[in-house]
């Protein structure tokens, strides 16, 4: 039973991570189509300058793609705006929830969680149609400018449902709040406003931090709402979507790998910090016990031996394997300009061969009439040679 469970977990996590890992590898393949096979060269071109194909089409890399950069900037602005609006709203709504009469509480709660259950497209559309009307009524000038500003509309539309995420985080934290703290402060002569700033806000600080992070991430990766409310502007997600629709490029793999790397680093740092805090807490507890016991027999038991941390061993192993693979790649000429040039000339020569075959494929009048090749009068020169297009790899 446990064995089966292990296999199932393995399959499940392969499903979760497999596509991402394969995508990460395709970011390093110099070929124009994101693929593992055929593997051309190991290269960083999709992170840097990209490539200009023979037909002049520019397949931009991450560093040179100005549309991605513009999108990233507006995504950051929108994220900041959403955090500034949705965290206070979520906090206010959560605090008021504790003061609402119990008969009204269910209705209040339902309205608060409703936006999460609405499809994102609907929130985007409703915001746009409302503000288009407001802008129309406002005539020219400031109101119409604001009402037709994609970034402003996106902030409002996203705040509508991201406030609910914040609300839920604050509700969870407030459930463990000890009301007697407030009462004590009031008894000692604090005003209501002081209680809010000196007791409630410090207690809610961790929730504020996590709500801000969640709100920013949710805003940053939102597409369904943004694609309507952004109007003529672009965010990172809409740029990605338009790129995917036009044709998939390894530059997107490179972008995804960058985001994955940042995510993993953040997660690992968070985990390490948490463990360190836990260990500190345990150590302080141990010291407390030692002081209490004050006997040499107990002290001896706490003497810790030197242990090599697992993380460092794994890191060293990773570095060794990585450097070995890197040297092998360079040795076998799978990296660098020479390899890319070789691959390009190979493709070009194939292309030239095919062109030559095309040109040398002169048919006599007899063939054109439907002679030895079996073609017919109208299409003889196109269908004359059945092997003609077999190895044609496209115009790059």
């Amino acid at each position, binding site marked *: 039973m446990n064995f089966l469970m292990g296999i199932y977990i393995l399959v499940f996590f392969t499903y979760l991570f497999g596509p991402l890992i394969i995508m990460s590898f395709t970011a390093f393949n110099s070929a124009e189509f994101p693929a593992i096979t055929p593997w051309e060269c190991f290269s960083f071109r999709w992170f840097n300058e990209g490539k200009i194909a023979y037909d002049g089409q520019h397949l931009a890399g991450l560093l040179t793609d100005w549309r991605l950069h513009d999108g990233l900037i507006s995504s950051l602005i929108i994220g900041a705006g959403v955090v500034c609006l949705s965290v206070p709203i979520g906090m206010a*709504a959560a605090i008021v929830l504790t003061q609402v009469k119990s008969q009204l509480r269910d209705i209040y709660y339902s309205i608060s969680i409703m936006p999460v259950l609405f499809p994102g497209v609907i929130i985007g559309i*409703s915001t746009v*149609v409302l503000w288009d009307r407001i802008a129309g009524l406002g005539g020219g000038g400031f109101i119409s400018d604001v009402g037709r500003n994609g970034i402003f509309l996106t902030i409002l539309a996203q705040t509508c449902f991201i406030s609910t995420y914040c609300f839920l985080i604050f509700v969870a934290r407030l459930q463990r709040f000890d009301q007697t703290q407030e009462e004590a402060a009031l008894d000692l002569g604090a005003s209501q406003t002081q209680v809010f700033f000196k007791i409630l806000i410090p207690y809610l600080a961790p929730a504020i931090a996590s709500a801000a992070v969640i709100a920013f991430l949710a805003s940053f990766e939102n597409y369904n709402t943004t694609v309507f409310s952004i109007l003529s502007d672009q965010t990172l997600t809409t740029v990605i979507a338009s790129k995917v629709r036009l044709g998939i490029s390894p530059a997107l793999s490179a972008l995804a790998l960058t985001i994955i790397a940042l995510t993993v680093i953040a997660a690992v740092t968070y985990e390490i910090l948490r463990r360190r805090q836990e260990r500190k807490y345990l150590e302080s507890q141990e010291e407390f016990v030692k002081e209490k016991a004050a006997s040499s027999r107990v002290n001896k038991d706490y003497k810790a031996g030197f242990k090599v941390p697992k993380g460092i061993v794994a890191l060293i192993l990773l570095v060794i394997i990585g450097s070995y693979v890197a040297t092998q790649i360079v040795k076998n000429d799978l990296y660098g300009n020479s390899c890319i040039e070789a691959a390009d000339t190979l493709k070009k020569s194939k292309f030239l061969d095919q062109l030559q075959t095309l040109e040398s494929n002169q048919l006599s009048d007899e063939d054109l009439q439907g002679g030895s090749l079996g073609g017919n009068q109208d299409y003889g020169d196109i269908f004359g040679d059945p092997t003609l297009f077999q190895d044609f790899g496209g115009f790059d």
Partner: protein
Amino acid sequence: MKSLFFTQPFFQKNGKSVALFFLVAIVFWFIFLVIIPQLYMLDLSFRANIPPLERGGPKDFYTLEHYRHFIFGSKTSADAYNFVDLGVFGRTILVSIFVTIANLAFCYPIAFYIAKIATPSTARLLIVSLIIPFWINELLRSFALRILFANEGVINNVLTGIGILDQGILFITYDVGLYTGLIYAYILLMMFPLYNAIESLDINQIEAAKDLGSSTFRTHWRVVIPHAKPGIVSGCTMVFMLTVGALATPVVLSSPNTLWFPQLIYQWFNLNDNWSRGSAYSIILLIVSVVFVLTMMRIFKVRIGEIIR
């Protein structure tokens, strides 16, 4: 109003300035961001589609034209019903139900394992690794699947390279990619409610059931699942609503000749510039999916308050 809505006088309880801030924030959110836009969209969906300049003029009247179009099709078409749009809509709902059930089936064993069998450190590791993929953009996750499933993609290349297949399978054309992507997209939103619900179950109840001679299946059916019902319902609701309203995954993964319903809305709205009809279709999507969820909750006897906890 103070005694009507609140347990204590509102302005006294919070202090004047803070109370004002609360009131402004909540009214801004509920009225201005949630209710008015929806009501205005509802209003727009009953209006004729006219350019902005003609608003208030003779052509600006209320009509059921857009809803009629959804059911019966355009006036010039010969068909009795609008089979194309109705087909897209029905398919969206059916596939969403299938995706929800598949998600539940996939997540239940993992959630049970993390909550009840794994050691605390393993459980933490598994949870962290569950979260990592979902910090990555939904579009990019779909893009990863697109690389795998494309006609010249990794799976096809590997299979033909080994020699199992002569020709690649058209995963995208037959929407295999889309279904896989939709299951992938919101699986975390099923996992966490399930995990939370199962985690709160006392392990002694499972042991007791076993001691009394219950089989594994029976233990799950009679002890674990009834306890986890709120979690199951809340996970299913979230996954269903998000799948029905999904746009990012279908944009990347759906085949060129099939549409997901939000894509249809997008077409009316952005490509055909018919905002009224786009609004009408949005209203249809919203009402049908909400009614469906409420019906399911009535059938399984769960209150709305239990949904998101």
